[in-house]
């Protein structure tokens, strides 16, 4: 059994209540941090741990915290990004509904470290029942004196607010989230200024993912160095992976970063292999936005070395042969999956979710979706494939926020690795449009 930092007590009955959570050692980190440590010491421990943002970008969390501007007389805010809306990712949802106090505890310590007296948890609106669970947990914590005025006699005040979002994908982008939280239309802001300087209500703000904040209490209890000892290289600690698709055991798994991809996919402790009787075709390793790779390139990189589940190893080979760990939305496709249809499906999502603020993303996502729709329904032409590549290149990097990149990468990578399948759709429209028809020439593992 590998180390479980976040999910250790998830199977304990009643862990969502404060009583059981405290029996399992909960809130000891709050006591330790508020009574024995200064805020700067907490920041220092998080820096030492090397924990990286679990929302997808993988930016070191301690570094993000130390960028926070601290002008006199201006409030600072901590916002927890629980808008988790990346297709294929459901780890935060699981964590919040099973063990809400872990997040609340993390929020208290993080807010203390950053000097924030009002913190927000922005949860996507579809998860109303999770919002109720969180609100109940906050009530319990308040009654026990872990929230409110003068927490544990330390003189530190904190108010924690759960805010339901409207369910837009774009509101998971940190500046769009802040706009939405302020009650405005969820359009991403131009950067600079970054939220660390001018964020919520024009005040310095840190926005962190649920999973990142949930790790803080373990780091405070056990020390940053103990956390940094887990994992491989700059990918320290453990990561929740939401495994879905054509595997025997879909679900949320906590892995130590640096686990081999082969073991994660095939061992019974985790995914349990590609569903019985079928063979691996392709993998999306970190949520729908990251490049899709064929099974062969997922298990071994271009040099024939084994790939590991870590930020560095998965992105080895860049966009040509690599992918990304992203938010840990692990989607597996076997030979029955049609890559063209899947790419069209992803594209539809991005067209629907583009905020419509900047022109390359607003018009480009719709254009790609329409061209893919045509190819999927047997009305494409060969020039459409190069057109898609060209359009994706013109979107990528030219937009305000990363949604443009996220829309462009799946299309560009699908064509890069599965071009023959796109061509088959165009040259054999009658066969390709039959229900359940799949290209037979794909390389399987």
């Amino acid at each position: 059994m590998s180390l479980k930092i976040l999910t250790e007590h998830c199977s304990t009955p009643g862990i969502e209540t404060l009583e059981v959570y405290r029996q399992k050692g909960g809130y000891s980190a709050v006591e330790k941090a508020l009574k024995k440590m200064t805020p700067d010491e907490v920041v220092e421990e998080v820096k030492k741990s090397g924990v990286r943002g679990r929302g997808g970008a993988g930016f070191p969390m301690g570094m993000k915290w130390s960028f926070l501007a601290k002008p006199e007389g201006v409030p600072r805010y901590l916002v927890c990004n629980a808008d988790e809306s990346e297709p294929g990712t459901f780890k935060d949802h699981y964590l919040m509904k099973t063990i809400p106090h872990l997040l609340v505890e993390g929020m208290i310590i993080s807010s203390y470290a950053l000097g924030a007296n009002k913190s927000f948890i922005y949860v996507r609106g579809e998860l109303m029942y999770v919002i109720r669970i969180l609100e109940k947990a906050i009530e319990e914590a308040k009654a026990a004196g872990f929230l409110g005025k003068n927490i544990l006699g330390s003189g530190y005040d904190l108010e924690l607010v759960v805010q339901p979002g409207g369910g837009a994908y774009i509101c998971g982008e940190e500046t769009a989230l802040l706009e939405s939280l302020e009650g405005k239309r969820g359009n991403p802001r131009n950067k600079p200024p970054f939220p660390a300087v001018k964020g919520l209500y024009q005040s310095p703000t840190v926005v962190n993912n649920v999973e990142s904040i949930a790790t803080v209490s373990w780091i405070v209890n056990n020390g940053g160095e103990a956390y940094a000892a887990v994992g491989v290289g700059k990918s320290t600690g453990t990561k929740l992976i939401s495994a879905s698709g054509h595997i025997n055991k879909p679900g949320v798994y906590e892995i130590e970063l640096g686990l081999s991809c082969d073991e994660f996919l095939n061992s019974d402790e985790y995914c349990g292999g590609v569903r019985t009787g079928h063979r691996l075709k392709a993998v999306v390793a970190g949520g729908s936005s990251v490049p899709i790779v064929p099974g062969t390139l997922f298990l071994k990189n271009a040099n024939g070395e084994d790939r590991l589940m870590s930020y560095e190893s998965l992105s080895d080979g860049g966009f040509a042969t690599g992918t990304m760990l992203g938010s840990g939305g692990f989607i597996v496709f076997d030979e029955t999956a049609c890559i063209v249809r899947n790419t069209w499906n992803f594209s539809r999502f991005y067209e629907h979710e583009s905020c419509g603020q900047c022109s390359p993303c607003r018009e480009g996502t719709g254009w790609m979706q329409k061209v893919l729709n045509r190819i999927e329904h047997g009305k494409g032409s060969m020039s459409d494939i190069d057109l898609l590549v060209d359009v994706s290149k013109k979107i990528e990097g030219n937009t305000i926020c990363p949604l443009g990149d996220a829309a462009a990468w799946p299309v560009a990578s699908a064509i890069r690795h599965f071009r023959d399948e796109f061509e088959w759709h165009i040259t054999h429209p009658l066969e390709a449009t039959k229900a359940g028809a799949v290209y037979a020439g794909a390389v399987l593992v």
Partner: protein
Amino acid sequence: MEDIKPTMFKVTVDGVEVEVAPGTTIMQAARKIGPEVAPPAMCYYEPLKGSGGKCRACLVKVAAGSAKDPRPMPKLVASCITPVQDGMIVENFTNPQVVEARKGVVEFLLLNHPLDCPVCDQAGECHLQDFAFENGTSTTRYQEERRTFEKEDIGPYVQLHMTRCVLCYRCVYTADQITDGRVHGVMGRGDHAEISTYIGHAIDNDFSGNVIDVCPVGALTDKTYRFKNRVWFSKPVDAHCNCDKCSGNVQLWYRGDEVIRVTARKNEWGEVTAFICNTCRFEKKKTSDWVIEGPTKVNRASVISANKYASNLIKKPDFALKLAESQYKKIDDSRPYVNDMAEIKQSEDYKALQQKNESFFKK
């Protein structure tokens, strides 16, 4: 007592150096040099706070971030919102990557925009038309159906036709900053986003007419002027009046002896210099209402003056363009990586480049 001067930043745009105050954007620095190097703008509007960054027409390459940190920026940046640093080197028309990206932006903006300039009221003074003429291609690769909207009634003076809109948000900022109480905004998202008023509200405000002036395309037009004229048949004249609501400084558009339209005055970037009220704009259409100052200076090459687009409308700095073309070379990844200067000087590539530079400067 000595004058304390604020330190000035030196910025180079397309090979031309300029000194600007700290906090200036790349766009403003380029405009200070002149129209030859100024990036196009579809959404940025200097008088409106917070505008810019949306259309991506003004993307530029920052080849060197600053004198202290001369690394190039990894992505193209929107020049209208990126502040300059001392020693920054910006490439605009001279960078093939920028030219290509801008071609892409033209294509994107025209995807859902009707290509019926001959029947559009804005033709001749349309920013999108100018932008596409200067930076785009003459064909489209788009085969799908275009997004269209029904015309919407938003009040007695302003006609909204969403089909032509490029979602620059200028009219939203205008309503926020010039009028009291905005009733229109952007609804929906993605390529089905639209400018509209909340549940068919009418825009009723003394300064609502200004949204017509700031609209870069023909999405918001003047109901008292629509389809009465083509802009190149009329001649603009500067005039003023005593108005208790606004400055009263306007442009009258004459066709023969008749004032057919009143607009606010605009500077050389097409930006309104002083917003005017609806009384001046829509109700004072007699010469006797105004004190005439004289003909407005119009760029001779513009459509308003010349009735057509001139092929040499804007002279690009061709020296810099040629230099960039002669040195632009795709990076060959298979070459061995050398960083010993002596070895580099021996290489054929280096000699060829030296010769090319020498012969270029001799010319």
